[in-house]
């Protein structure tokens, strides 16, 4: 082939890349493992995160101990019984409920002591209520405590207003923006979209390319006039499109099946997702070129991409609560920069200043990863 004419060279290069993409596309369609990772696994994950993983405590079974019944204390018990957060049973002694709490059959015990009535009528005394929760599940325990406090505060404020008499009470009016129903599904499902892109972008790419190295077909490709940049482009473009397709599938299910609100624009969703796929794909290619082995590649991809995206991105676990050293590590996890924007595009709307920053950082990661991948691929051939 003569490469004297630059226009001819460019068109030849384009043709080679297109041919490689076509080859890769056929391979994706024919290979059951890529369908498994790009379609079946996302569906399973989405299903599990949509239905199975929920932080929303609903109708916790509690025991209410009423030590001395009176009209005041009975109305407080009624407040617990009518609360949508609780399924309350009433007793007169806390020992009745102790065993059930140990067995995990009860989420908590509310004790209204015998002194409550007197204290509530005496100036300068605050009546006391005790809440006992099961600390073995700290998150549920904290939520149950919060709901119980809410019931008590609302009851107290209501009593003052109803009785038409005075008596200072507090009312905390809380409003949850962007997610008034407080459904954890609304932030878990968008987070799951990030997991899926990490799976397709890194795990699948690493596996498929490592297989080519393992079988020696990569060397065969290298022996053709294809340059290593063209070769990587031929790998990148199809998996980039596949990643976007998986993302689209997940987003559609999130919105139409799980009724997660979508308040941003589709353009913003694609812009953010594309920016995230660059480092994800780069990482996959780098792993495959560095290991040349399917087994190692899959382990490395799970450890360096799936696990950090799950644990260190802030989609489920709060980064500010982690130890400082781990907080530093999160800065180099690309998903950390994706999650806030992804959750915002679903729940808040287009916040372009925030998106632009994430996109810039993600593209930066992408350039570094891809450069490393190109370097690793060249070195292997030489």
């Amino acid at each position, binding site marked *: 082939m003569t490469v004297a004419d630059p226009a001819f060279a460019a068109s030849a290069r384009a043709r080679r890349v297109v041919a490689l993409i076509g080859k890769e596309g056929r391979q994706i369609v024919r290979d059951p493992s890529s369908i498994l990772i790009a379609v079946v*696994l996302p569906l399973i994950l989405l299903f599990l995160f949509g239905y199975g993983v929920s932080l929303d405590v609903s109708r916790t079974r509690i025991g209410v101990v009423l030590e001395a019944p009176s009209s005041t204390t009975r109305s407080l018990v009624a407040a617990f019984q009518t609360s949508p957060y609780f399924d309350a049973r009433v007793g007169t002694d806390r020992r009745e409920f102790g065993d059930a709490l140990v067995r995990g059959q009860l989420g908590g015990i509310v004790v209204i002591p015998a002194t409550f009535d007197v204290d509530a009528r005496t100036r300068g005394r605050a009546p006391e209520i005790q809440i*006992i929760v099961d600390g073995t599940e700290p998150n549920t325990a904290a939520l149950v405590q919060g709901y*119980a406090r809410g019931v008590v505060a609302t009851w107290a404020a209501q009593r003052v207003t109803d009785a038409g008499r005075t008596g200072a009470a507090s009312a905390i009016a809380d409003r949850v923006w962007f997610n008034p129903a407080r459904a954890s599904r609304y932030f878990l499902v968008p987070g799951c979209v990030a997991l899926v892109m990490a799976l397709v972008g890194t795990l699948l790419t690493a596996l498929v390319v490592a297989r080519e190295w393992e079988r020696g077909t990569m060397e065969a490709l290298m022996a053709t006039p294809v340059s290593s940049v063209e070769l990587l482009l031929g790998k990148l473009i199809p998996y980039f499109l596949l990643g976007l397709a998986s993302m689209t599938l997940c987003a559609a299910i999130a919105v139409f099946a799980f009724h997660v609100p979508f308040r941003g624009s589709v353009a913003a969703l694609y812009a953010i997702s594309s920016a995230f796929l660059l480092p994800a794909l780069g990482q996959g290619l780098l792993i495959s070129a560095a290991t040349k082995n399917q087994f190692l590649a899959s382990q490395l991809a799970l450890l360096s991409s799936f696990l950090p995206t799950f644990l260190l991105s802030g989609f489920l676990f709060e980064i500010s609560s982690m130890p400082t050293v781990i907080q530093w590590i999160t800065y180099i996890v690309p998903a950390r920069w994706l999650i806030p924007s992804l959750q915002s595009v679903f729940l808040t709307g287009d916040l372009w200043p925030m998106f632009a920053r994430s996109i810039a950082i993600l593209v930066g990661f992408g350039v570094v990863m891809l450069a490393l991948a190109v370097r690793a691929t060249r070195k292997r051939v030489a």
Partner: protein
Amino acid sequence: MWVRLFALVIKELLVVLRDPRSRTLLIGPPLGQLVLFAFAATLEIKNADIIVLDRDQGSSGAELVRRIEGSPTFRSVAAAHDPAEVQDALDRQRVIAAVEIGPSFSRDLAAERPASVQVLLDGRRSNTAQIVDSYLGEIVGSFIADDNQRARRIGTAPRVVARNWFNPNLTFQWFTVPGLIAIIALLIALIVTSLSVARERELGTFDQLMVAPLRTHEILLGKMLPPLMIGLVLVTVYIVATIVIFGVPLRGSLVLLYGGTMFFLAAVIGVGLFISSLATTQQQAILGAFLFMAPAVLLSGFATPIENMPKWLQHVTLVNPLRYYLVIVRGVFLKGMDFADVARSTAPLAVIAIATLSVAAWLFRRRME
């Protein structure tokens, strides 16, 4: 029979432990996961950032703000001057919650009227937001109860005192780390078992095993015992780490814990053999193990309670061995569960173990003969 079985067990252990790659796979990721999960997987709220808009004309508002600032839960308590600032801080996720104290807060308190405080929360992180809300409710509630007592008012605002049984400070690691013992037992038993037959088939040594003077049930036992042993060793390492490094109290009996562990490992090994006899390559075995692990972990109560799931899905979790084992591990560690309570969770494990092992044995026999 015992001599042959012993030889087979030794051979299986050697296969797993001699290969440096599988050795690192057994030691590296489990330890890494222990550290990473124990420290990173926390739903505890520390260092939260909030913003306060105090529009109160009296002094009570400022006092309440000081109380909020004094709480160790919050890293920074910014002061806002107008609602637009609050909106911007919430939008950009600079704060998780905003507190707005109304202009009549002091006056309402003094006049013995309900005094109100408004809390705005970022629903994009609704779990964190609700826990922050609960802390704020505690601070405001006790502030008002104190203020009523000081001013000798009729205190209709009750003081709510919370006590957390089994885990007084709601330390999140006391929840995560015992759970990790269960996860590691699942991971190791599953990977070792599911790879064992697939590896032999891939390397072609399975045929050699079949022509060796061994009965089917001996081969089966030889495949089951090594993962059981390796699983028990790693569980022991984790139990020691849980007690020594993470300081989780062990309130129940170790005998009960190990009893439950045996039944759990048997159930998982059954699943592993099942995957192993279906897979033809190690790659497929690993993917199969991953496909089983993901739902087993997410639908077990490891991270989120089973009670929060929809009813029909709760019924599905009844066949998940991890669900019962988590109750045993957490119960023995934190609650000091007695024999009757542990037995209640071990019985379903025994049933699952018998079921998975019989199916695996049947499949295995069919492949052998």
